[in-house]
């Protein structure tokens, strides 16, 4: 029943009537995912394995390992993906690369499901990289835009850097246990020293995929892709994969590793939240908010509560997808209106927008609902899941003051900032007076685009988590959470006050004013730092190495070749001048001698007489003296 989902995805890649067939396939898979979820939820893990290949003596299998976490993820992934598919049929209508788009979208979902269902870490890594490839294709979908191509390359490269860490983690695990099988690995009980290193290496992969500090800068750039893709990346696939992986292999993590994870998570959450405050591009604000929320989830995992992280992942998937799709609607309808009116301005820049509540009432309401969930207002799902995270951190920090208190306080600050930037978006885009859009004939988009948004917005209320709007122990958390419960009713109470304060602040202070900070706008100049500290030096190193290749190694070869040729010339000269010279010299000597002696026998009587007389004289002199 599960392989059906997978095969549905693959066959979808080859369909041509994609706009119709692709969402249909996704619907089928979402339904079967719902069935799978229904049968698996709260039950024993379900495992199927096939032999894939052997390495050395070990047989590596490929198979499915389905437990509560993965069942939940399967549901999220297929559902969001289905909605995004439906939405895309409207958003991407008329795009010339639509076949490629849908096949990559399907492939993306397939790869993500692979991560979720894989039974071994190696297989997770395989799909992990495939997700990277799919995101590369989708972010770079509009190929002729140089920024899109650059953003796609950057996304893949940053993921690759994380994956290199993942790979090292795999090597450590293989060397120490000889298996990649998740069920086998879960049996490893003792805490070995290698586990800290191995789990941190795996976390490197997570940093890449879930855009954690310091590998976070690719995600805002990835906004160059089509908006539904952003929704998918941010809600269900790609970035969620990192959090999911941590939750899946949480048995591997040692306390030291978890501390590191918590710190990285909270740093990311703070940095991204601050950056989100000052961005002017609506998609970038959402991107930074995703990074910040992911940071919170990672912190929760570091605090030892993967159940809280998964809960937030679950709620976040719905309201963030909803927000992105709303933003997509704004961008889409304004683009169309622009084409009709032959004007041009940047529709993603919120400074150009305003007062859209009148022309886009539906989108306005949906945005408010999803945005409230993001901000964590009471009666919304985000409130409950954030509450779970804060409670987890509160329990983890202990009663004595330590650095963990800073993490705790920082988490509260992040949730405060979240409210401010969310409402900043709402104030500037939908409230106030219309700005550049005043003269445009803006109309609400077709039903295929509104439907998914409506569903997602409805899914942002508290009911999908638990019946009690102030208590997160609903049907999800109780199943995922094992071990002792840590409960603090006071946290919910403080949260309510805190959020109210934040909303008030945002209404009274930030409704009109905007903060601007170059530092935050550029996300702490991380990109510049990478370019100057890593990018440029490696290019310089590359050209240096190429210089070495051409001048030193080839130079040496050339010099030795010249030396040989010169030696050859010298030997040639030696051969001609000395050896041949000697031979020729001897030859000419003998010729001279021959000539001379020949001349003795020239047949001239006078000469004979002369020689004879000379001989007699010599003889006489010799005998006489």
């Amino acid at each position: 029943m599960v392989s059906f989902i997978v095969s549905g995805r693959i066959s979808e890649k080859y369909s041509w009537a994609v706009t119709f067939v692709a969402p249909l396939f996704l619907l089928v898979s979402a339904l079967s995912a719902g069935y799978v979820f229904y049968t698996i939820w709260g039950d024993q893990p379900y495992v199927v394995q096939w032999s894939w290949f052997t390495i050395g003596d070990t047989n590596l299998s490929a198979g499915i390992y389905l437990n509560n976490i993965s069942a939940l993820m399967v549901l999220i992934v297929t559902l969001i993906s289905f909605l995004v598919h439906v939405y895309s049929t409207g958003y991407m209508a008329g795009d010339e690369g639509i076949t490629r788009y849908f096949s990559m979208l399907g492939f993306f979902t397939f790869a993500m499901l692979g991560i979720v269902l894989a039974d071994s870490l190696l297989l997770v890594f395989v799909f992990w990289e495939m997700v990277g490839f799919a995101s590369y294709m989708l972010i770079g979908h509009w190929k002729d835009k140089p920024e899109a191509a650059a953003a796609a390359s950057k996304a893949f490269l940053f993921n690759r850097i994380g994956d290199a860490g993942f790979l090292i983690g795999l090597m450590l695990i293989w060397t120490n246990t000889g298996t990649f099988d998740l069920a086998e690995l879960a049996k490893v009980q003792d805490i070995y020293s290698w586990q800290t290193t191995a789990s941190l290496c795996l976390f490197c992969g997570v940093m890449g995929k879930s855009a954690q500090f310091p590998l976070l800068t690719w995600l805002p750039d990835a906004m160059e892709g089509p908006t539904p893709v952003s929704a998918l990346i941010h809600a269900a696939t790609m970035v969620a994969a990192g959090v999911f992986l941590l939750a899946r292999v949480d048995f591997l993590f040692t306390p030291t590793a978890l501390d590191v994870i918590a710190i990285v998570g909270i740093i990311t959450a703070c940095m991204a939240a601050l950056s989100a405050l000052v961005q002017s591009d609506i998609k970038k604000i959402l991107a930074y908010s995703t990074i910040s929320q992911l940071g919170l989830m990672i912190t929760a995992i570091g605090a030892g509560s993967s159940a809280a992280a998964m809960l937030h992942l679950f709620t976040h998937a719905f309201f963030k997808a909803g927000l992105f799709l709303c933003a997509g609607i704004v961008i889409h309808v304004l683009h169309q209106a622009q084409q009709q009116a032959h004007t041009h301005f940047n529709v993603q820049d919120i400074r150009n927008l305003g007062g859209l509540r009148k022309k886009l009432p539906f989108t306005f309401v949906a945005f408010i609902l999803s945005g409230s969930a993001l901000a964590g207002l009471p009666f919304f799902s985000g409130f409950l899941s954030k509450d779970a995270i804060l409670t987890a951190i509160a329990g983890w920090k202990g009663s004595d003051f330590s650095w963990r208190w800073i993490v705790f306080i920082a988490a509260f600050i992040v949730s405060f900032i979240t409210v401010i930037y969310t409402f900043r978006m709402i104030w500037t885009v939908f409230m106030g007076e219309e700005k550049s859009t005043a003269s445009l004939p803006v109309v609400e988009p077709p039903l295929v685009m509104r439907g998914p948004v409506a569903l997602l917005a409805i899914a942002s209320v508290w009911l999908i988590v638990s019946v009690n709007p102030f208590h997160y122990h609903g049907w999800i958390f109780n199943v995922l959470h094992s071990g002792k419960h840590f409960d603090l009713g006071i946290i919910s109470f403080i949260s309510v006050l805190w959020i109210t304060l934040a909303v008030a602040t945002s209404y009274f202070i930030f409704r009109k004013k905007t903060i601007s900070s170059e530092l935050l706008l550029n996300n702490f100049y991380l990109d510049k730092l990478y370019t100057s500290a890593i990018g440029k030096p490696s290019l310089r190193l590359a050209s240096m190495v190429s210089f070495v290749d051409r001048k030193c190694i080839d130079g040496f070869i050339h010099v030795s070749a010249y030396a040989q040729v010169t030696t050859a010339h010298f030997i040639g000269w030696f051969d001609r001048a000395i050896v041949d010279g000697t031979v020729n010299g001897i030859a000419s000597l003998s010729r001279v001698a021959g000539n001379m002696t020949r001349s003795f026998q020239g047949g001239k009587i006078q000469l004979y007489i002369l020689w004879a007389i000379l001989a007699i004289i010599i003889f006489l002199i010799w005998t006489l003296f």
Partner: protein
Amino acid sequence: MHHYLISLLIFTPLLVAVVGLFIPAKAEKYFRYSTLGVNLFQLAVLVMMLMRYVTEAGVQFVEKKSWITLSLGSWGMLKAEYFVGVDGLGMPMVALSVFVLLIATISSWTIDKNVKGYFLLLLILNAAIIGSFTALDFLLFYLFFEFMLLPMFFLIAIWGGARREYASIKFFLYTLLGSIFILIAMIALYISVHDPSSSGQLVHSFNLLNMTDPTNFISNSVLDPNNPWKIGPLDARLWAFLLLFFGFAIKLPMVPVHTWLPDAHVEAPTPVSVILAALLLKIGGYGLVRIAFPIFPEAAMHFSMFIGVMGVISIIYGGLNAMASKDLKRLIAYSSVSHMGFVLLGLASITPEGVAGSIYQMFSHGLVSALLFLIAGVLYDRTHDRTIGNYSGLSIKMKSYTAIVLVGFFASMGLPGFSGFIAEIMIFLGAFKSNSVNGLLHESLAIIATLGLILGAAYYLWTLQRMFFGPYDLKGNIAHSSIYDLNNREYLMLIPLAIAALFFGIFPQPLINFIDPFARNFSEFVLSTGKSLTLNP
């Protein structure tokens, strides 16, 4: 019949080449089709071999005929045999050769300069390559090995690009130097080894399998493992290993003896580049596995750290050079250097994973590098310009071509789903594990080698971004009319390679069935023999 399958593979192209000598050069069609016919015939023979191959049975399809027997009086007898056969190492290499040579012939269809000479040389090269992958007698191997040089030299020097003379002479001298190293080691081995099967008289033989058994060495000979001569600071056996190692490392090629490769590749015509990258480089790796490691196992263990470090240097150095390349073909050539570094790293680990990974990598690189050079050739055929900076936004005009390029580049990057990934993961696992299993390599080597993966992604993505994405534009003297998408012949040569790379990435087991028994026996043999030899100095 099936006793002569290997001879059929080797001698059919030679026979056709000899017949071809008497066909007038005007019959260009004859040469093309007869070469293609030979390739298809070889493919049929290959299929027969694969069907009869027994994976666990070691050396198979053995043919052994006495070839040279010469009495040397008190020196004993000189014996060289026509001794061929394949095992888990030879079989994948032969399969790869037959497949790639067929593709190379298809891509040679556009050659129109001196067709007769070209295809005859291609046939000779064909025989020599398959001969080297199957020979189990050192003299026979050496003969085929040298025999490859000549057609290669002429193929580059006559049908090559602008600097073809320089490149071909460089190629020739480099490889000749390697051949001389191998020759010296071969003579030393020949003096030291006797044939155990001949009782009474001392018979010197070139049998490679005999050479791997330390008891076959004549006591007090140059390379006697129990009492080797000392030459300078090292044992003669270590010297002999180094000679073989460098001889094959030049072919592989390993940094810093690799500079013949980029030049030869850039200047060679496309099919010759394909053969060079896909097959000739593999003979370097093949020689290490077949000859250097098993004959001198203790030396291999002694130098394994050195070999591993050289492998890692090749990976990083090749990757950096690729990043700095401005010429597409040069970039691919340097990526070959980088990928063959993985072969060295895997071999140096002497673990089943590492060795199997190395052989898998040779096979996979054979497919992928052939694909990449064909890709470069497609563009060069159209525009006669390979400068990366002169193109932009090609994906708009050449959709299918871009799709194939994506496949090729990502396959070469080692994306999961392509054959390179399986090879690299096995090499990484083997190299990393080595320290805890046999203590030969340090873990840091594998960790540093992961940088090669990042570099690979960097230079390929950057190339994609510069050449294929962005707005469509051409610089230099490229005519816009010369940019058009793939034709049927090009599909015919590109698609099978892409499918093969994909197939062996998703279903590695069929190939691993061949490699794995060999790799396990090999690493066990090298380790146990190597240890026993170092214990008795």
